[in-house]
């Protein structure tokens, strides 16, 4: 139910236009961080203010909206953002990946492949992949403009030297079309290969005031040494649906420490179970 006091999708039209310009610029320069005038949203920073603003500027009244947090539709963050959009835009929402036109996500890419008419919007905490190596924004911007990315390999080198392997399990840095170095937001390394997809991908960082984007089928390459990229995951099938190819969450089930591994993508798991797949822990 829409409350008449709100403009469609909360933001005023001027703001949405400003954000759309940033999105278009981002799509024209894949991986490049476009500054935008991020607005105060009725939720704290770190709860997806960037993603919500990008969603608000992208949604039309005919769209169906889905929100996931760590792959799940039923976590607090996902539920509250879904409610927020229902209330301010009055559009249809869904938990079905295949039914959604716009999907806002935190920390995961849905397991089911997305299509050309879908848009995936990421919530991004820190858009600058070089931030922890070079804290000065003036320097990192120069490094981006000059493709001066040797430093990122120094970080990966350090990982191997200190841990024996590249110990970056999430937010694994990627090169976009051989040009910009990009932070894929804190998605697991497992999801990185999925970023070459049919859907448009938009990234919004509210506190940092940056938007960046990947047009469909953009080439996304994980940064690596010449030994092959290893998209790590737990070596188990899903306990509920038996999926072998999905990213899993580890769930402790009782006080004696019994545990099970289940799909982090709740819609994917349910869809599989509806189709008759059963895991070893399924009731």
């Amino acid at each position, binding site marked *: 139910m829409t409350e008449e006091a709100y403009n469609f999708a909360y933001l005023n039209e001027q703001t949405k236009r400003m954000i759309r310009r940033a999105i278009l610029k981002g799509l024209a320069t894949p991986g490049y961080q476009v500054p935008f005038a991020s607005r105060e949203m009725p939720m704290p920073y770190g709860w997806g203010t960037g993603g919500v603003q990008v969603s608000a500027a992208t949604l039309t009244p005919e769209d169906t909206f889905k929100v996931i947090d760590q792959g799940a539709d039923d976590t607090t963050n996902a539920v509250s953002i879904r409610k927020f959009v229902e209330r301010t835009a009055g559009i249809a929402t869904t938990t079905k990946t295949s039914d959604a036109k716009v999907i806002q996500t935190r920390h995961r890419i849905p397991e089911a492949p997305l299509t050309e008419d879908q848009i995936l919007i990421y919530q991004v905490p820190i858009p600058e992949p070089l931030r922890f190596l070079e804290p000065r924004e003036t320097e990192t911007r120069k490094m981006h403009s*000059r493709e001066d990315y*040797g430093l990122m*390999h*120094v970080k990966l*080198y350090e990982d191997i030297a200190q841990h024996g392997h590249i110990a970056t399990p999430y937010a694994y840095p990627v090169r976009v079309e051989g040009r910009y170095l990009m932070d894929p937001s804190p998605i697991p390394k497992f999801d990185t290969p999925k970023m070459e997809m049919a859907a448009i991908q938009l990234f919004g960082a509210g506190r940092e005031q940056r938007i960046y984007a990947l047009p469909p089928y953009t080439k996304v390459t994980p940064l690596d*040494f010449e030994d092959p990229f290893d998209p790590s995951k737990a070596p188990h099938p899903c306990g509920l649906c038996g999926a072998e190819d999905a990213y899993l969450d580890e769930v402790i089930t009782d006080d004696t420490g019994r545990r099970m591994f289940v799909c982090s993508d709740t819609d994917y798991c349910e869809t599989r179970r509806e189709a008759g797949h059963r895991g070893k822990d399924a009731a």
Partner: protein
Amino acid sequence: MSLLLSVQDLRKTYGRLIGCTNICFDLFVGEVIGPVGESGSGKTTLLNCLSGHLPPDQGQVIFDTRSDGPRNTVTMSEPARRMLARTDWAFVQQHARDGLRMNVSAGGNVGERLMALGARHYGDIRLQAEDWLTRVEIDASRIDDRPATFSGGMQQRLQIARNLITGPRLVFRDEPTGGLHVSVQARLLDMLRGLVRDMGLLAMIVTHDLAVVRLLADRLMVIKDGRVIETGLTDQVLDDPQAAHTQLLVSSVLQV
């Protein structure tokens, strides 16, 4: 010997103050040249203008690049200059902390230039880093230690390895032995001399320590108030100084 660096009419001012002016000289492969002068004479300004850290107000710095032959580094694009800075040039800082990444291991420090140039084979990078650590007399087993756990002299040597791994043709050194114990200085000096000889590079060493330049430099350039007042072979300038200021400089050195 081939011409590597040719400086013509270089000038840099800070408002009304002259950093350096009317600087002209030619340098050849295999030479070690030392600009000397008192603090504030313009040595460091000159070094920074030549190494691309400061834009000069006028003049040309023609450097014979390995890839494209002679180029004016003053007018070339910033990315091209940065590329030179990590291939053909080396800049060894006075304070090792300014020239090293203190939170990155010794191997990462030494390998950074290789990775910046596109080296992507972990094993190769590591082998080369180990080789260079050995060449600067750091035990290869320290490859995964951070520079913070190294002594001052080791940090300086690590800085040298980090800079020389890409086989630069021109090395800039600002006060190479400043702040180090005398006995450590000696080792460092000898290593530098050996590297200059073996790698056939051109080195420009800025220092106010005349004893150091006597041992290291082939030629001196005496600078006063931003101007070169005397040039010549090191022993000629130190043993038979011509200009009044040079005579003063030389006679001010304590004899040991």
